[in-house]
């Protein structure tokens, strides 16, 4: 469908410029998108429909996009970077790859979204947020006569041996957030003791962050440690998944958005930025089963989505645990002390 309209508009453009000999340069912009694919596509279509501005979109993970911004710093090709966990956005702000912008939409946003902006000198802003947790397959839990877990500490109990799955913190941002959360929750020493205990129960460290809950959904594993919205998504898809907000409290991520510095289409970029913060745009997430908590207070949320207000959130230190030194230190420690242990 999109192709057809593109061809049609292409033909139109040629015809018009041929008859009027006036260069009809259509407004356009380039979006770097770090959320899931269908969500990105939906945002592009929604924005094009709302404003008529042509968007060319590249979907890459937040790490990749950060690297790309760095590589293109002298010749930026992108205009807006939308989605993806907050750490690399903060890092980009720190390195001056993104531009400060104070949107008129701010008053509609939750506090945590604005806090994200203030901490980065207005160079980024929160667009959604998701809390860490885990989910379990109710059928398998019953089949194995296991008690229902409710806390982080439940996961290190010996009866769950071979039933827990999480991603490898080296390859997954989700798993790193887990590691950082545990360290902040229990303190570093006790936190690592917890990770060692958890290690004994893990049946597989997956590469991708959301894989553990998908395995649980299909009945290939019992418990998966993931962001809660990912678990909700499986439950909504019809899988026997129950979502758990750990009783001790938990960490979270703030999905962010930034405007690329010296971008080629700053006007379009700002239009997108404002639009993306609107309730209308954030409600689109429901169409693609993205159950993150939107930053606009007015946007609709799914009844299945985890309610951030009812979850005990820790005061996650994004500045510290987002810094690359701390990250490397923790990962190395995990590699050396935890991952090598026999299971």
């Amino acid at each position: 469908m999109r192709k057809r309209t593109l061809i049609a508009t292409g033909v139109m453009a040629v015809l018009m410029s041929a008859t009027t000999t006036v260069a009809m340069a259509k407004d356009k912009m380039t979006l770097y998108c770090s959320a899931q694919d269908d969500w990105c596509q939906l945002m592009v279509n929604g924005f094009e429909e709302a404003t008529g501005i042509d968007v060319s979109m590249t979907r890459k993970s937040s790490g990749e996009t950060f690297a790309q911004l760095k590589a293109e710093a002298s010749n930026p090709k992108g205009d807006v970077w939308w989605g993806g966990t907050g750490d690399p956005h903060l890092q980009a702000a720190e390195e001056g790859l993104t531009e400060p912008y104070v949107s008129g939409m701010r008053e509609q946003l939750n506090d945590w979204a604005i806090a994200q902006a203030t901490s980065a000198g207005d160079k980024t802003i929160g667009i959604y947020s998701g809390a860490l947790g885990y989910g379990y397959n109710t059928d398998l839990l019953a089949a194995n006569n296991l008690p229902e877990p409710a806390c982080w500490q439940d996961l290190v109990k010996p009866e769950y041996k071979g039933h827990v799955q999480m991603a490898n913190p080296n390859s997954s941002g989700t798993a790193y957030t887990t590691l950082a959360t545990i360290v902040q929750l229990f303190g570093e020493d006790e936190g690592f003791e917890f990770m060692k205990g958890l290690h004994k129960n893990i049946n597989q460290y997956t590469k991708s962050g959301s894989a553990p809950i998908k395995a649980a959904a299909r009945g290939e594993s019992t418990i998966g440690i993931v962001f809660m919205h990912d678990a909700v998504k499986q439950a909504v898809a019809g899988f026997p998944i129950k979502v758990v907000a750990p009783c001790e409290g938990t960490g979270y991520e703030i999905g962010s958005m930034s405007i690329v510095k010296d971008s080629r289409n700053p006007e379009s970029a700002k239009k997108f930025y404002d639009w993306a913060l609107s309730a209308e745009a954030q409600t689109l997430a429901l169409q693609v089963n993205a159950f993150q908590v939107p930053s606009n207070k007015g946007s609709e949320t799914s009844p299945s989505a985890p309610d951030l207000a009812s979850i005990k959130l820790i005061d996650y230190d994004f500045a510290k645990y987002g810094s690359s030194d701390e990250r490397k230190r923790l990962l190395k420690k995990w590699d050396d002390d935890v991952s090598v242990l026999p299971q």
Partner: protein
Amino acid sequence: MRTVHSEAVSQPVLIFWIFIGWVGFLVLPWYAIEDGLFSFEWLFDGYPFDSDYAPAAFLVAQGEKLWLAPLILPIVAVLAAIGRAKNDPLYAKILIVSSAFGFAWLFFQGFGIGLRGWQFDSLEALFGPLGDRQFGMGYGALFMATSFLFLLTQGVAARGAINGDVFVVSAIGGVIAVISIFVFFPIAKMLTAAFITEDQTYSIAVFSSKFLDDRLWGVSCLSGGGKCGVAWNSLFLAVSVGAITTVLGLVFALVVTRSGFKHKRVLRALTVLPIITPPFVIGLAIILLFGLSGSITTFVADVFGIQPTRWIYGLPGVMIAQVLAFTPIAFLVLIGVVEGVSPSMEEAAQTLRASKWQVFRTVSFPLMRPGLANAFLLGFIESMADFGNPLVLGGNFDVLSTEIFFAIVGAQYDQGQAAVLAIVLLAFTLGAFYAQRFWLGKKSYTTVSGKGDAGVHPSMPSRLAIPVYIVAIAWSLFTVVIYVMIVFGSFVELWGVNNTLTFKHYITAFSFSWGEGDIRWTGAAWNSFWTTIQIAGISAPITAALGLLTAYLLTRQNFAGKSSFEFGTMLSFAIPGTVIGVSYILAFNVPPLELTGTGIILVISFVFRNMPVGVRAGIASMSQLDKSLDESSLTLGANSWQTFRRVILPLLKPAILAALVYSFVRAMTAVSAVIFLVSAEYDMATSYIIGRVENNDYGLAIAYSTTLIVVMLVAVGAMQLAVGRTAIGRRTSIKPES
């Protein structure tokens, strides 16, 4: 009358290439257009003065990008060659010197000046900061480079290389140029990337620390406890898969050629299926059967009261999936070999009082050895490069290809790490490639002499036949079950949870509606589906053409350095797709060649991945064409291009079709290289399906795969019909018989 022939041809060709060079310099935009090669918006958007779209001449005239100015020298100089006789020594000298200079200048400015000015500190130190930068080359540069290349080959031809044959020299030059750019350059780039530190300097220490990492080479699994290195995992897996697929392939080849087995056609069809199946689909089906909640697991657990386990995740699962997927490749290699063993040799052995078993052991089997080695090598490389099955079934069993992928796309985003891993992978496959050539190089196994062989293959000895039957039937049943699973899985609501039959997945993927007089493609899969068909459709003819041209050069021409030329063209065969993907990202993400995110890079990667098959098909059928056909055409006054087009090509239809089918199918099912190179705009079916799998959307993934299988079956069937027809024509058309 014929003596002026070559002069009459050479002048227009010369003028054509000079013209192309001038067009590149004066008319076409020098730098790549952001909106892609096929967008012509630039024509109305400030061309020719806007510096984004300006031709080199306009840039220089406006005082920008002054380093392009010297390019005018060679294109002015070559004008002096016009009107000169071809055997005038000045003609060759002018062409060679000026086009070589032009080419070299183009090359050095392209690599010397990049996005951030000087690319090398030494240049900066020498000339001071540049204060300017440049982007990827576009139409103008492409035209000029092509012009210089072919002017150079004309000069070289005029000096008497290859009997002064312009077409052959140009073809060699062209093939060398594209192979250098799209095979050797990316690999070289990848090698250097392995040495880059975080602050963009080079260091051996970085490489060695990554290379000697325990995660790569650790052996603690042997002593119990820890995990073994990724490299060992990959190597062990690939050797096992290579060996098992070779044995199974041989089994099938024997059943088909040397037994009274009645359902050979069914067996053949079964072996074609996995080739046109996207590789990881088999992995999915295996999970659905043997996973913790798989049908068979649950069934066995219920019946025998065994606690189900996750045994399938890891080495066993990956190995089963790969063996299922790659056995057909071994079969296709081996059936030719098994059929090719001359029956009269076996009959000779029988008349010398050898029993059937002794004949098989002492004559038939040794003669099949090159085929076995080939099949093993293919299985080995495919397993090394396979990405989908380890992704789905790997569990904690890490292999190189997935590690490479996650080094690039994961949170760690470490291109250097990916490069190091890719180098290890490449070293393994090249090592196997070399070992095979070394082993076979010393012996001759030619048994097909071209003379008629009236003998009949003996049937298998019974002590071989019984196990062979058992294996073949078991495997066939297994394959059937797997495919039934796949089809069934595409029609149920939610596999394992809700087994209601539904067309939902097909509708989601491929729905369309009628609106405003035309079809509206509303399904989610159409975008990637059309892109895939388009990319496969474009790359298949290019692959076939390049492969056959190379085969022509290799079989029909003699030139210095032919053996290294041959090695170069065959090399990409031993390069796993994963490595191609990584190296393309490293090489074509930055000027002078910015191709990532375009459809072109997908086409190129398919062309160079699949070209060796085109070359092989071409060599095989060209060596059946008597060389005197070309020679007689030459003595009749046709030049070598006319000979190639009028005589060789028409006689190569079967090879052309084989190459077309293969590259089309491969382009539809390939994952390993594609996964790195797709973009939102150019998404391929396989990467879309992997995305669905990652999203736990098995129904859609399987529905899409099933559709692809059907589409390819239809396409392959249509092409095979076409091949069949020409083959009948060809029987009478091989060398004229007396």
